[in-house]
């Protein structure tokens, strides 16, 4: 089942730390947001492969926006 990973805070995409196709473990950062003067990772909710990354560095995302999808 593909699973959407959503931003839990409004911010700017600072870094993309997992590319499409990469395997991630639960708790690994998929992207890092910059918000509230801090680098805030958006973590994989479970183990899996990244199906797609839906954002680009520098892009503003709102809380609840889908930033990536797990296979």
């Amino acid at each position, binding site marked *: 089942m593909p699973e959407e990973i959503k931003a*839990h*805070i*409004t911010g700017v995409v600072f870094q993309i730390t997992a590319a499409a196709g990469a395997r991630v473990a639960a708790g690994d950062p998929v992207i890092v947001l910059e*918000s*509230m003067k*801090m*680098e*805030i990772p958006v973590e994989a909710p479970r183990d899996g492969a990244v199906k797609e990354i839906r954002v680009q560095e520098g892009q503003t995302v*709102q*809380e609840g926006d889908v930033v990536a999808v797990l296979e």
Partner: protein
Amino acid sequence: MGMKELVDELAAKRTRARAMGGEEAVARQHAAGKLTVRERLDLLFDAGTLTEIGVQATHAGIAPDLAGRETPADGVVTGFGRIAGRLASVIAYDFTVMAGSMGRTAEVKCNRAREIAYTKRFPMIWLIDSAGARIQEAIGSKSFAGSGLLFREESIMSGVVPQVAAMMGPGAAGTAYIPALADFVPMVKGTSNMALGGPPLVKAVVGEDITAEELGGSKVHCEISGCGDLEVEDDRACIRAIKDYLAYFPQNNTEPPPVVPCDDPPDRREEALLTLVPDSPRRAYDVKKVVRAVVDHGVFLELKPAWAKNVVVGLARLGGAPVGIVANQPMVLGGALDVDSADKAARFIMLCDAFSIPLVFLQDVPGFMVGSKVERAGIIRHGAKMLYAVSEATVPKLTVVLRKAYGAGYFVMCGRGYEPDLIVGWPTAEISVMGPEGGTNIVFRREIAAAASPEEERARRVEEFRKLINPYMAAGAALIDDVIDPRETRGVLIRGLAMARTKTLQRPWKKHGVMPV
């Protein structure tokens, strides 16, 4: 009958009452992964100290379907006993008798148990495993119109004696408001749940099909709603949690909290604190490591650990004396405060203040969250709860600024304006109305726009601004009491607590304030 026959009859009645709902019902209770009410009470109270009241009680005799039947102890065990030597009153629902429903006689017993805790001023404990009101005895205006006083009494007892409501089975409607008004609510994983309306009522009234676990299980309340304080593995862990919690509390609000002998050296230096904070001020670290490094033997009873995780609250000891810890958590949302975390911290501050437990604030807060989402959720009034609670608190308050202390975040975490008895900063402390980037954009907007190279001008101004944000500026103006080596934190806090022990603040008389709930 002579006395011998009479006491034999008494003994037989006692045996019947203590057999609860009978062998089959007890077997069902065990099969569900639950202990019986009497097994729970054996674990809770020091051996042989429970004095039961109302063991001969039975149902009120008004429900036709109960005619000719007995309801042992009327489905609730009440009494008083000693926990670690100290008295407490208990109301423990027995699910093996009429599903632990709140019968009319049962409520008379419960009223008695609350009266004992209230008038003798010692803790009140509920072990909840109950289907809620016993409808057969409560239905109709004649029955119901006089009921409900338990919640008024529990409200009045709040802040006078510690109140614990452990969810060890279901709690619906009536038995869900008991934990809502209690100070501490542990919930057993898998077997406990609470909801104002249970699944059958939900189905009948709003048409939703949902299980009790999905509706109000321990995960829902300990991770999403914030109504539960601690998810525990099983009944034994639940009883342990109640004892651990009570060990930090006085018997009532006129006594000091219990101090225990401490063999953890007061001036113990913790080398790990030297390298804990990352070099980049924008990187996160786990503030619980600071808490565990500083408190006695690293023992920390965290409350609501899985809800509003951007703030960490809980009980610990420093030099043997109980303290309440309020710490920002940079690992979650960068430590920014939002609606739920403000709620969580405000409530915890009120709890500690009510029972004379000193507060230790560990600050690393980039501020309150901003944006349309949180504004619509009422961040202004939720944030104000924390301002209100920290302002009202007259217990000793100690503040350590670990790193960020921005905007109202600095205020609500007991900044200088909020009567800290001691406020110190680590060398990494950044106290400011806002960060250098945000501040520069506002203050030097025109200069930056007019510059030949706006980006260079902005960078230069940001660096200038950054120089103004360091602990020696605050300490140089004597607005924080000292800059300390992180390794000294434990010693500084213990000396500060000893100094503040005799703190006396007399607030102006008022009936009560208008709390921004």
